[in-house]
């Protein structure tokens, strides 16, 4: 492990003030958790604002303008306002399920950031099952949405929760198989190793490294990721025109804010994974200390792409969504995987 890793640096720092053993590890990760949370809050606030600006400019208006320069603190105000909103507890709800759903939604989105390589050495813990862990932990989001739908005892919420479960479950498979292609190429599940395998020139990025197959895998991943993040054209669980607000219809105040936050953290997660797996992660010209800039630039580019999707496409219908996943995307990704394996075996890869 490289000494520049932020975790090791922090450990040294804490060690120098007298901590040791298990307590040191726990304290280190505790501090990192708070740091990651702060980063994610800022990111989510920024992304909501950015989304509204992008939407505004696509629609030939401005988006938030009045609160600060181009409305820069608009989302902060939204957050503060949500903090002051009353928490409505429906009489007929399922108490535990209703209460834990937003927490679980947020935690599932938050815990994925343990293995997210923000830059060279900027990673909380380079678990050797990295990508598998992310796939596993983000799936908890489905359960939380289902819990929200069921716990509210509202028919629209139930429909929304059911839709989201069916949708995320269906798109999980193509997403995993697209990821497998990258794993096959890097022969590792560790996020750091996957990024390091893409060092050097641009053709070492997985999207180009495996000719055609990489590009197809990237596209299938993005489609599946949009579905996983519940965004248009796959935003069926909270389709405003059909289900009023979907699974979060009965949530108000901070509980709703948690869903909102988790949604945008998930947006960042799926884009960051796309960057890590296919677009070379933090790799870019310049010293290691500015590698995080490359990571964020690439991630924001992918997020911008997803925002363009959201504001230009109509929404699919639920059966079309399922058919698209099972009858088109899953066969395509599997064929893609077989081709990738064959190419790997015969060494038809670019770079390295």
């Amino acid at each position, binding site marked *: 492990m490289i000494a520049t890793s932020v975790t090791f640096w922090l450990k040294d720092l804490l060690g120098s003030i007298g901590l040791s053993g298990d307590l040191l590890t726990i304290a280190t990760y505790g501090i990192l958790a708070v740091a990651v949370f702060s980063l994610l809050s800022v990111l989510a606030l920024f992304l909501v604002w950015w989304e509204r600006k992008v*939407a505004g400019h696509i629609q030939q208006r401005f988006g938030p303008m009045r609160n600060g320069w181009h409305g820069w603190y608009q989302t902060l105000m939204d957050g503060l306002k949500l903090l002051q909103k009353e928490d409505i507890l429906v009489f007929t709800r399922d108490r535990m399920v209703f209460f834990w759903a937003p927490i679980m939604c947020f935690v599932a989105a938050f815990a994925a950031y343990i293995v997210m390589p923000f830059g060279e050495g900027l990673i909380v813990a380079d678990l050797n099952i990295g990508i598998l862990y992310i796939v596993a932990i983000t799936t908890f989001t489905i359960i939380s949405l289902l819990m929200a739908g069921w716990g509210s005892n509202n028919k629209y919420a139930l429909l929304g929760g059911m839709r989201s479960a069916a949708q995320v479950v269906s798109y999980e498979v193509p997403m995993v198989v697209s990821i497998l292609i990258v794993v096959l190429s890097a022969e590792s599940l560790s996020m750091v190793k996957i990024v390091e395998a893409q060092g050097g020139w641009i053709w070492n990025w997985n999207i180009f490294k495996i000719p055609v197959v990489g590009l197809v895998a990237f596209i299938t991943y993005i489609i599946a990721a949009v579905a996983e993040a519940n965004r248009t054209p796959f935003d069926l669980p909270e*389709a405003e025109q059909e289900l009023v607000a979907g699974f979060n219809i009965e949530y108000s105040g901070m509980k709703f804010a948690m869903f909102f936050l988790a949604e945008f953290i998930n947006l960042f997660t799926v884009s960051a994974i796309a960057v890590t797996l296919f677009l070379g992660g933090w790799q870019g010209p310049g010293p290691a200390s500015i590698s995080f800039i490359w990571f964020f630039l690439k991630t924001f580019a992918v997020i911008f792409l997803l925002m363009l999707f959201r504001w230009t496409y109509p929404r699919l219908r639920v059966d079309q969504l399922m058919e698209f996943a099972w009858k088109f995307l899953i066969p395509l990704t599997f064929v893609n995987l077989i081709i990738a394996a064959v190419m790997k075996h015969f060494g038809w890869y670019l770079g390295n």
Partner: protein
Amino acid sequence: MAELRTEEFQVNMGPHHPSTHGVCRLLLTLDGEKIIKVEPYIGYLHRAIEKICENRTYPMCIPILDRFEYVTAMSCNYVFSLAAERLAEIEVPERAEYLRVIMLELNRIASHMIFFGTTVMDIGALTPFLYALREREMIMDLFEMTCGQRLTYNYIRIGGVSRDIPKEFIPKCRETIKTIDEKIEEYKRLLNGNPIWKARTIGIGKLSPELAIAYGASGPILRASGVEYDLRRDDPYSIYDRFDYKIPTYQNGDVYDRYMVRLDEMQESCKIVAQALDGLPEGDIRAKVKPNFKPPEGEVYTRIENSRGEMGVHLISDGTNKPFRLKARGGSFAHLQLLPEISKGCLIADLVAIFASFDVILPEVDR
């Protein structure tokens, strides 16, 4: 698949629901997402327009009828004025007729813009809604410079129109219809090639011509089902026989065709407006009508082609200055009745698309 027994459940859609376009309540019986039965409940906007019109003099009825169908308030003005003129046999000056046609067609475009925006929004694309309203604002500007109102105009009066157009109107109107014509092409490029849009609209909510006629469907919905029937041509009124325009007709009667009929109709309306601007004569804008207007006894049913189909007024006069009976008929009334028939067995998302494609506007149903 073996049949697993599941429970049907009932959901209220409306009166407060983003896609009912007002305060309509649909009681859905669902099996999962599939719709077993739709029962519309209306009357949440029943303002008794017909009753209070019996209590007003003829000129006072016109602003009330503005609110009967506020999206195309010009048509409401016009159909009532036409009925009153037919009762009293008033000749309307040439220039007034041209101005009426211009306003009616501009209003038709404005109304279809709302249809386009809301339909596309209900299917999930938010952006075209704002584009459509942006273009609509240009027409609102034209109305505003003519009669000072954006939505409820009270412009077409018995015997003519309330005031002449300002000088700047004609160049601005030409520019507007040119822009709108281009923008409609842009909308078509934006959506018609989009596979998601096609998947969501083509073959959804098919309406056969027989069913459409039996249920009294009219206007774009009838034409989308392949019946070429337009009251502007088939029950002529005003001066529509002087203009050259096509009646767009499509054959499948699905959501996509209803949408295409309206888009094409907007372009045809642009053509009519352009011709009317070319032929606009000089002269009076209003026939001599007494302020205390008293038509002779009699009754008349007048119908015109509105953007939502046949709009009619059944007017009975007893010789006094107030209508003895005024029955307003809107296209949406018949169309909403049709909804349960064609939305059986589809999904919730389809119901939303079908409802949007009917372009139901609730005050026309509830009055």
